[in-house]
């Protein structure tokens, strides 16, 4: 086993490195040069020309958001939803921790414990959407289709981390019981014809 990580005692500087940024201009002339070079780059006029061209064509496709909204596809990956089982309404998440493991931004954390019925109980679950890159891995890996991506892309807050109250993500219980919870078709959902590909296991009874 490598002991390297235990030999770095400089806790404050761990995991940080410097990125290459040109030094800020310090003289007045330097500042003027920077402003001029940023302002008169050719790209500006390319952009202006495109807008002007489309304007004079009078062929406008603009969606009148928020009065109009484009439909989102099933594979769209916005803020997560936590699903429930139909009928019983039990939360689908079994606390396997695969989403926590696979998450590449390391933004899922969960707490589990043994409950009175000797089952694994998820006592707390969070996604730090301030870090989430909406890659969809968590939804794909989830063996229970418990964590999925929803279509909710409208979030207003000064912190993405505010969108993640667990109770907001969780399907309301009446929606699960009444069967109105939408089954997820996106990333990680069961593919069609899955049944045909499963080999049966012999049973002795």
């Amino acid at each position, binding site marked *: *086993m490598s*002991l390297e990580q*235990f*030999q770095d*005692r400089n806790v404050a500087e761990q995991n940080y490195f410097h990125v290459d940024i040109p030094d800020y201009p310090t003289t007045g002339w330097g500042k003027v040069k920077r402003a001029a070079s940023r302002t008169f780059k050719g790209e500006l006029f390319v952009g202006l020309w495109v807008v002007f061209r489309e304007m004079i064509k009078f062929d406008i496709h603009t969606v009148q958001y928020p009065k109009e909204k484009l439909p989102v596809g099933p594979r769209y990956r916005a803020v997560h939803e936590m699903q429930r089982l139909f009928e019983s309404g039990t939360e689908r998440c*079994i*606390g*396997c*921790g*695969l989403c*926590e*493991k696979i998450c590449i931004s390391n933004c899922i*954390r*969960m*707490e*589990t*414990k*043994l409950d009175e019925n*000797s*089952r*694994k*109980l998820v006592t*707390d679950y*969070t996604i730090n959407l301030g870090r989430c890159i909406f890659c969809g891995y968590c939804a794909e890996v989830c*063996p*229970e289709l418990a964590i999925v991506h929803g279509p909710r892309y409208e979030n207003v807050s000064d912190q993405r981390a505010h969108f993640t109250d667990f109770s907001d993500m969780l399907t309301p219980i009446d929606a699960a019981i009444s069967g109105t919870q939408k089954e997820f078709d996106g990333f990680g959902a069961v593919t069609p014809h899955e049944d045909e590909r499963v*080999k049966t*296991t*012999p*049973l*002795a*009874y």
Partner: protein
Amino acid sequence: MENNITITIDGKEIQTREGEFILNAARANNIFIPAICYLTRCSPTLACRICLVEADGKQVYACNAKAKDGMNITTTTENIETEKRAIMEVYDVNHPLECGVCDQSGECELQNYTLEVGVDSQSYSVPDTHKEAVDWGLIHYDPALCIVCERCTTVCKDMIGDAAIKTVPRGGDALNTDYKAQMPKDAYAMWNKLNKSLIGTADRSDMLDCTDCGECTAVCPVGALVSSDFQYASNAWEQKQVPATCAHCSAGCQISYDVKHTDIENSDEKIYRVKNEWNYVSLCGAGRYGYDFQNADAVKDETAFNAAIAAFKKADTIAFTSSITNEEAFILRRLKEERGYKLINNEAKVFKTFLDDYSKISGQQLYGADLKMVHASDFVVSIGSALKTDNPNARFAFNNSITMNKGAGLYFHPIKDPVIDGLSKNVMSINHAPLQEETALYLMLDLFADKENLPKDITKYLDSFHSKKMITIEETIKEEIIEKVMVKQLNKETGEEEEVEVEKKKMVPKKVSKEVEVDDNALLAQLGAPADFDEKLQKFLKKKEKFSLMVGPDLYTHPNSRNLARLVALVEKYTQFELVMIPALANTLGVSLICDLDEEVGEYTIGYNTKADFTLSALGDGDLDMPALNQQEGTLTSINKRVNPTNVALSYGGYVLNDIANALGLDAKYTIDYTKELGVVKGFSRESFDDLPNHYTNSGEEVRGYLLKRIGIRRSSNESVNELEDIAIQSDIVYLANPVLQFTAFTNASHQLHGEGGLYGSEAFMSKHALNAGDKVNVKTAQGEVRAVMIHDNKIDGEIAYLPTFDVNLNSEALFSGYRFSSASYTKV
């Protein structure tokens, strides 16, 4: 052990030892052979049969087939692959599909091998049975997950010695008989056995009654045996392993603290469990469950720190315990050099004195052997140690050598120990009276010393214990008797058949008693050895080659310890026994080598982990906080004379001893800067901390820290020893020892082991004094008196009770004048 033969595995030539199992040879050379049931250091059980290989054209089990010179081994043939596939399919029959929540998931050998072999469909089936999970206190057993590999029962018997669990009937339907013909042979045989058994307690009671080492949970390849506390607490893969050294006893086991953030809100690391390399090191329950003894929430309290500096300036004495690292001990040594403090640590002091006296005769600074040698020996003697609680690993070594090497052992201790007695029928306990440890050592000389070379005085003295006596023995002899029998004979004259009487000689066995003259050894009588001692010993000693002797703290604290040390040295010198001394606490050996300890306490004392005028405490109950051993990096010196590194598992926010030392004029950035400096101490090396490794290799080689150098000491030609004095402890006796799972206040600080100490006594003790568990008892000795709760301990027997040291509220040490036994009176209140 030398590699002396060459074998070929899959075309690769490797060196190994004659008689080594093929599996171990392969592992040592990084060749993978699947194996589930085999445990290194334990006997092969052939439960899983997946380790099939072909050796010189014959299919054998790699875990129990021995390597021979020139052997040619193939790890895979078509038949072996078919067997493996069938074996893994069988293991998966009815195995619950609960990997998603199983605690073993991610480190499960059933998962691993199922994927390795590529089981993607099932061909076999048998009706499942309903199996309730059971709660065995610290351990949880879910039979539904059990694959009956028997690793748990094997380790419990061959290594630990409790033999507290065994295979029990499973119930349920038998296998479909057609399978016998259809299935690969080994897979069927394996399944047939599996389908008949499960694991249960050895006495078939509902509750597991054992010394709770938890080793069975460590070796269990699946989630069947798990720690109750860890159940569903965290997934294995979320844990970060911090390689460390157990801080509780002198065995210095290698462990890894498994840490992860405390919870969603709190990112501070928390220890969730302790793991070990169970193939090469076995933990006791204190090491496994007593991990969270950290000094939590300590902060840099400047006022307290300044008070500490003022106290150090005022003090002339530092008292401390041996639960500190070598580096801290070295800081204390440096402080003594700089500022002239007296260093007080009685427990290490007596050990040091013992070592010094021993060195005078042996000419060595340290005892010659280690526990590894005990594992390898076949005749082991233990004197002066409550083995199973003083150093659990010494007990494992005692048991392992006896079970694995067809060995035998003698256990000299005043307290009768049913666990030791239960290890094997080849263990004989001699429960002598306290203070008779000296007699036991004389007996060792008498029985085993090379009398030719032993100093004449001693031989003569030993002879004085022998006399002749007449005893009556019953003997079976063959006696010739003459029998009259009727036989049919043909009368030649008459031609008729008639019966005649003839005499026949016949030998018949007959019991006679006769008087014989035998040797009478008064030492045996003095020790209260069993009547059949001689006879049994003769049997025990047959075909024995490697002898080891373990001596323990009862000797170091004995009033005649100086003489005992000399006797121990003589035993090592004049007998074939290799010697191991059991240091009492985690770093007693290190402290006694590093610090020059004093006896007299001065005016004003600083206590480190012990109460004094100004107290530094890693338990958080002193005037200034110190880090506990799981919050520190540093080294600890083990019974195996090894300097083992340990790393920081949990963060610590307060001041450390090094800060104080720096304020007092020493200069080191980190405590571990002193690791290198240890080189000035006899035996230690000048290695820096970051260069110290801490792991085992695939061949089981211990690559941890470094070994203390062997240092010769000038030997004195005087080998005289004092004769036995007639000393005894009158009246009732109390002993100073800890119950199973406890060592110090630190083990008691952990949440799983926390408890209240009391007076521990056997059934016999309680009935003698008319006490019941839960009664309050006043224990009074010449030194003082404590009030304790009576606690029934079924792991001891006889009429001696003991008081523990792990519960600081009891202050039991105050009742003893040094020696671990004391006369005492008990009154119920």
